[in-house]
């Protein structure tokens, strides 16, 4: 029997190679639903859209073409005060409402999100740069799913901890990132409201749009004024939100650097804190894995949402005996990824969220090539305007390369090899982070063993980037603490009376 492992490509011209050319090009297929974006958005405080006391507005741009899509109110300290007083006022009645009544509001919000799913998907894609097929098939449906799930909890809290009486914390201050704007908002708001808390939430400054559009839905759902308040702005606004004395708890999702600042800020106060921070997940591929499906999982793990995913599988650990084959297959696979206009239904990889983020990715990638790692980028053309980065993989990476240690938060994969299970575990755990990991093998017993040895909040086996509202998500070490989703996530928004 002849060897059936593909040989390395390049080199001699007689080596067979596939042609991914332009014989059959897909015509543009833009999603045309109207995102219904207003020219200007005010802050959402006390159930109403109110002009900012700061008197200032900032522009939000579409990273796919750098055009301004709307103006958003900038909240200063006084606006943050106003939001907290509205939330504190609302807490008195909201927390005393029977659980089934709170549940009704959450169900209503979930259904209204579903009703306007296409509109929200287009708005999310225009604001953040993610491919429409992801906002359409993942972000918006999952956001609705989180509201549905927690609506179910609202009238069953007495069963969450049998024999104990769970009560809400009070007003919760929440700060969310720009990678999954509406979904992170749902992860934060839905459990907080189900438990009976009220909320002041700040979306990221580059992606405030869908939060403010959700404000319209909250009005339509007749959610009592002040139960949810949205304030917008950058770091300064966030700092005022975190420092506010009314907050009983701060929930933050974002970078590890900011997470550390928040921890320092809260030290010595009685505020509760949960952090969901960065990651540098290892996707570990053993030589008995189904190779093509592992390649698919690795691609899904790192190129989903342009790699702007805290649990992205940004380090590939592949067993030495199949490393060459695996990398060849990976290169062919990323060559057929379609990079470009995020609103096109055939786009696989969209725009980088901001110029700042693009600069950061470029800087880290340069450090990789300067450090002697070998770079391969997909053979795609990039649009001339907007922020884009080619799907990129690095081979010859060592543990001490910056691209193996630091979170790039972009479509960049660092590939390392290993020989034994012990070496794989050691390399996978040799990081300051511990959010997620992936294991690819045909052996069930090895999966179970790896899942206990890997220090990561989520370990996926023979798949990657799978989420469900009932499954708790969160990290070890510098990836943060506290969980979101499931009963565990819910409990982070309550205390035993």
């Amino acid at each position, binding site marked *: *029997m*002849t*060897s*059936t*492992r*593909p*040989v390395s*490509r390049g080199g001699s011209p*007689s080596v*067979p*190679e*596939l*042609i*991914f*050319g*332009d*014989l*059959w*090009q*897909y*015509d*543009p*297929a833009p999603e045309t639903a109207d995102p219904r974006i207003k020219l200007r958005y005010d802050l959402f405080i006390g159930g109403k859209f109110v002009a900012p006391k700061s008197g200032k507005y900032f522009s939000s741009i579409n990273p796919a073409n750098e055009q301004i899509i709307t103006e958003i109110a900038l909240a200063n300290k006084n606006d943050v005060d106003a939001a907290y007083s509205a939330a504190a006022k609302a807490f008195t009645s909201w927390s005393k409402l029977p659980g089934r009544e709170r549940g009704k509001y959450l169900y209503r919000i979930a259904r209204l999100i579903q009703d306007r799913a296409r509109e929200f998907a287009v708005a999310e894609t225009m604001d953040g740069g993610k491919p429409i*097929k992801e906002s359409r*098939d993942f972000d918006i449906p999952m956001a609705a799913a989180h509201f549905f799930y927690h609506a179910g909890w609202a009238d069953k809290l007495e069963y969450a901890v049998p024999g104990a009486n769970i009560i809400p914390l009070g007003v919760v201050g929440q700060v969310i990132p720009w990678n999954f704007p509406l979904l992170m908002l749902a992860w934060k708001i839905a459990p907080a409201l189900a438990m009976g808390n009220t909320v002041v939430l700040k979306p990221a400054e580059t992606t405030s749009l869908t939060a403010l559009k959700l404000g319209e839905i909250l009005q339509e759902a007749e959610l009592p004024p002040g139960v949810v308040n949205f304030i917008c702005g950058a770091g300064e606004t966030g700092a005022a939100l975190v420092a506010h004395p009314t907050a009983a708890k701060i929930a933050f999702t974002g970078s590890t650097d900011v997470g550390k600042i928040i921890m320092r800020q809260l030290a010595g106060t009685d505020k509760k804190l949960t952090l969901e921070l960065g990651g540098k997940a290892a996707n570990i591929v053993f030589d*008995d*894995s*189904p*190779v*093509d*499906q*592992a390649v*698919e*999982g690795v691609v*899904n793990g790192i190129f989903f949402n342009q790699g702007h995913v805290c649990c992205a599988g940004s380090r590939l650990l592949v067993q030495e005996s199949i490393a060459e084959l695996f990398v060849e297959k990976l290169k062919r696979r990323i060559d*057929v990824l379609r990079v470009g206009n995020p609103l096109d*239904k*055939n786009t696989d990889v969209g725009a980088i969220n901001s110029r700042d983020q693009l600069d950061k990715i470029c800087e880290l990638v340069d450090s990789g090539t300067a450090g002697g790692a070998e770079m391969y980028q997909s053979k795609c053309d990039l649009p001339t305007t907007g922020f884009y980065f080619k799907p990129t993989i690095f081979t010859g990476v060592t543990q001490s390369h910056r691209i193996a240690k630091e979170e790039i938060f972009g479509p960049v994969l660092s590939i390392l090899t290993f020989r034994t299970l012990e070496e794989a575990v050691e390399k996978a755990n040799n990081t300051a982070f511990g959010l997620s990991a992936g294991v690819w093998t*045909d052996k069930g017993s090895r999966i179970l063993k790896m899942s206990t040895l890997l220090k990561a909040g989520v370990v996926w086996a*023979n*798949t990657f980037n799978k989420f469900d509202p009932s499954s708790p998500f969160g990290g070890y070490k510098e990836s943060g603490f506290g969980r979101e989703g499931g009963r565990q996530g819910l409990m982070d928004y309550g205390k035993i009376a």
Partner: protein
Amino acid sequence: MASPSRSRFGKLFDEIGTVDQVGIDERVAKFTTRSIKKGSKLWGLKTAVTMVDLTTLEGKDTPGKVASLCQKARRPSSDPDVPPVAAVCIYSFLVKYARQWLADTPIKVASVATAFPSGQAPLETRLEEVRMAVGDGADEIDMVINRGLFLAGEFQAVQDEIAAVVEACGDAALKVILEVSELETFDNIRAASFLAMQVIREGDFIKTSTGKASGSATLANNQVMLEAIRDFYLATGKAIGMKPAGGIKNSKMALHFLVAVKETLGDAWLNNSRYRFGASSLLNDLVRAIDKEKSGAYQAPYYYTEAAESY
């Protein structure tokens, strides 16, 4: 029996690798979300027409029905822009009629042989049928593998039978039907693909199904076989064709299959010397979709002549 056959499968899987069902299903789901519009849709539909093996395989087939089928194959539509199909696919005793009706056309005459669809006849009988079909003028032979031998782990015997058919084919191209629904697992479909590819010639095909068993050409089966063809080609340089057959009923499905070909094997497989659709009712749906692209309106089904269906 259990232990030697099991170890033979194990050895083969070690050699060629395995397939994960969840992963394959996820991969092909992405093909179905591709949005094929306007010019690219028209190209895809016309290309699909040129890939059709227009098929009739019924007990009640007659020379008259084959004549009708051949005419439909030459002119699938009154629109001259619609190209002829790749081949007609019929039972071996009808080959001589089809040959006559398709003289002076590039359309191939394909014949199922080897005691289709079960393959349950003595090898010499099966080979004799192949030789007769080729002698009557068949350009292509569609054979079925011996699933019993395969499932028993008698891989050498499976390959020997295919090799014997290759020899009996002479210059005719061979399509090896794996009958995927009887192979039970994706691992087995991949394994059977490799066994066949190792003994057939460049330009021959592997094919999913007879169309006579339940569960036939699905995007997932197709993908497992496309990936096997890709891996085999990259390792040996030998390009094998692919023919999904049975169950591809409409133009939308056909476009999904073509997307899978484009994104797995690339441009070199987007033609009828490397990719075919075994189908009958698909052709009219393709023609109807082409008319719709041009006129903006779907025509009623009765505008389209039935060559293979209404007998």
